């Protein structure tokens, strides 16, 4: 339970400003004619948990592989402190990786797997023994030290992969969708464990995932990648409440996108009109479902209000997603507390401040 609360405070608090550990500068990568990354710049702070979030094919794994040294960037540089990392082979970088399917050595047992990096570095055997024992203890795998990877479960393999990487005391740990092979329950448990482990060891983590919930739970900051370009880099709270683009708003959580025409500080979208403080012209607004209320009578005075009709309800446990159609035909998704809605005719209302102007996300390929 202790770990549970610590992970909640971790996402709630804003990360303290710390020195930059890794700096990715204008990195681009293409395989033949296929452009995978274009001009990505990103800084990772000491002790930070940064998640690179993106759909499959967004280039997130390629970016990670460039940092690890398995791929060379077509252009751009990677710096760790005052040292340029990208001309170095992977075995000279103080970076370790937890692979998607763990990549444990099948011919070595758990203990030998964890000791691999220290043996390669030719550390004294007493030191190896002590550090391996500590690492196994930290991930609670001491009891399985003599088993081959094929004899332990997926969650246990995951822990061994973590111990094998962390035992080398890297300055940066890269994690390539390490939880995607686990079932939902174990996955949630590992999210919490991983986050508390990261706080304990104080090493910067760069975590790659396509799962936005996972990103929200664990990260200090999220870097959202789309078709090889960063859409937004921000804390989970900021990226959710202040999405920069329509794509971000839709990718992280549910949203309603309202296409409006702004004139003289007033946004007009169909029959809806609300005051805004953005320049004139066509503008896209993101309105989260939980920021729309279903009411029967007029309540607050500055809210935007529109009559509508309920089309559909999707029960989601604590809340319910309701699709409602406004009188002008616009369909809005509304999140309400669970409970049977008695009438079909409702009034939808939201405060103008909750309609966040977002940039368009043009198609790329």
């Amino acid at each position, binding site marked *: 339970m202790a770990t549970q609360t610590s992970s909640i405070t971790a996402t709630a608090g804003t990360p303290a400003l710390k020195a930059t550990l890794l700096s990715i500068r204008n990195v681009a990568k293409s395989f033949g004619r296929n452009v995978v990354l274009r001009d990505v710049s990103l800084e990772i702070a000491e002790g930070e948990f940064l998640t690179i979030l993106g759909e499959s094919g967004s280039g997130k794994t390629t970016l990670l592989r460039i940092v*690890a*040294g*398995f791929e060379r960037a077509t252009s751009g540089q990677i710096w760790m402190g005052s040292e340029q990392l990208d001309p170095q*082979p*992977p*075995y*000279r970088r103080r*970076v*370790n*990786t937890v*692979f*998607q*399917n763990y*990549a*444990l*050595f*099948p*011919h070595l047992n758990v203990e030998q797997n964890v000791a*691999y*990096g220290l043996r*390669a*570095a030719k550390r004294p055997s007493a030191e190896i023994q002590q550090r391996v024992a500590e690492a196994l203890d930290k991930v609670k795998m001491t009891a399985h030290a003599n088993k*081959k990877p*094929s004899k332990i479960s997926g969650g246990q393999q995951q822990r061994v992969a973590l111990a*094998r*990487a962390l035992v*080398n005391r890297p300055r940066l740990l890269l994690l390539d969708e390490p939880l995607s092979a686990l079932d939902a329950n174990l996955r949630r448990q590992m999210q919490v464990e991983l986050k508390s482990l990261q706080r304990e060891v104080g090493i910067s983590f760069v975590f790659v995932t396509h799962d936005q919930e996972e990103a929200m739970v664990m990260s200090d900051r999220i870097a959202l990648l789309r078709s090889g370009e960063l859409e937004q880099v921000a804390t989970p709270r900021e990226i959710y409440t202040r999405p920069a683009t329509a794509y971000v708003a839709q990718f992280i959580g549910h949203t309603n996108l309202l296409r409006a025409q702004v004139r003289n500080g007033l946004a007009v979208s169909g029959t809806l009109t609300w005051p805004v403080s953005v320049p004139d012209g066509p503008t896209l607004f993101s309105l989260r479902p939980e920021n729309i209320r279903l009411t029967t009578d007029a309540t607050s005075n500055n809210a935007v209000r529109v009559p509508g009709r309920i089309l559909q309800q999707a029960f989601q446990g604590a809340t319910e997603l309701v699709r409602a159609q406004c009188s002008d035909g616009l369909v809005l998704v509304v999140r309400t507390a669970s409970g049977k809605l008695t009438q079909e005719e409702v009034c939808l209302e939201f405060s103008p401040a909750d309609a966040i102007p977002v940039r368009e996300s043009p198609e790329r390929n």
Partner: protein
Amino acid sequence: MFSRSYKTAVTVPPLAWVALFLLVPYLLMFCYSFWSVSPAQTIVRSWNLENYKELLHKSVYWETLLRSIWIAARVMLLSLLLGYPLAYFLSFYAGKRKDLLYQMVIIPLWVSYLVRAYAWKTILGSDGVLNTLLQYVHLTSQPLDFLLYSPFAVVLTLTHIYTPFTVLPIYASLEHIPRNLVEASHDLGATPTQTFWKVIFPLSIPGVVAGATFAFVLSLGDFLAPLLLGGPSGIMISNIVVSLFGAAYNWPLGAAISLGMLVIVVSLLFASERLEKKWSFG
């Protein structure tokens, strides 16, 4: 899923084939090895252990057997030394040329064994390609006679013929190594050399064992290369078996030697299978 008659139709012919052309001949050989030959050159079906006694006491038989094992061992070692780097290059570095190079390993197998053995004869002979060349560049003044009709010629030819049989299983086992294991090793700070000895080689052992077994077993039973290129000093055990079944007309002794070899080969196959299993990881 399949009907009973279908299963019967599919399984009976191959089983019958194996029984008729493998088990029955071996059984006959087994019987022959306990029989003897009369002075009048007829097979006497009286059960005795004389053939096996002769095998143990006459040095020519077990000396030839030892020489055959020694030749086969050298062929095995050379094929591995040649085949492993080739397979390793094919699997890790050949890139787009992989398929083409793989075919080039296989193509020699389409050429008749005899043609390849004769080719070595024209290369190694006293007025053969190699000797002519050596004299032409004045490295030697007269033909080197140890090249042909020697164990050297047999080892060389058998190595040439059986190296593809070691390349293929080694290549297959290298192809099975997940490439992220190699990346993981580099990631953990192991240099390419360390990675080879600690990850790639151990995981390719099943292929090495299979390849070594192929080269050794096939060489041990070979009789054409020693016949064509071995000369008196390059005689192998199979040549003796051939002559015992032929000119010498001593089938019982030939059968006894054959069974001895069968025991050696089968125990080798069992051992190599166990070794392969030990080094295979799901």
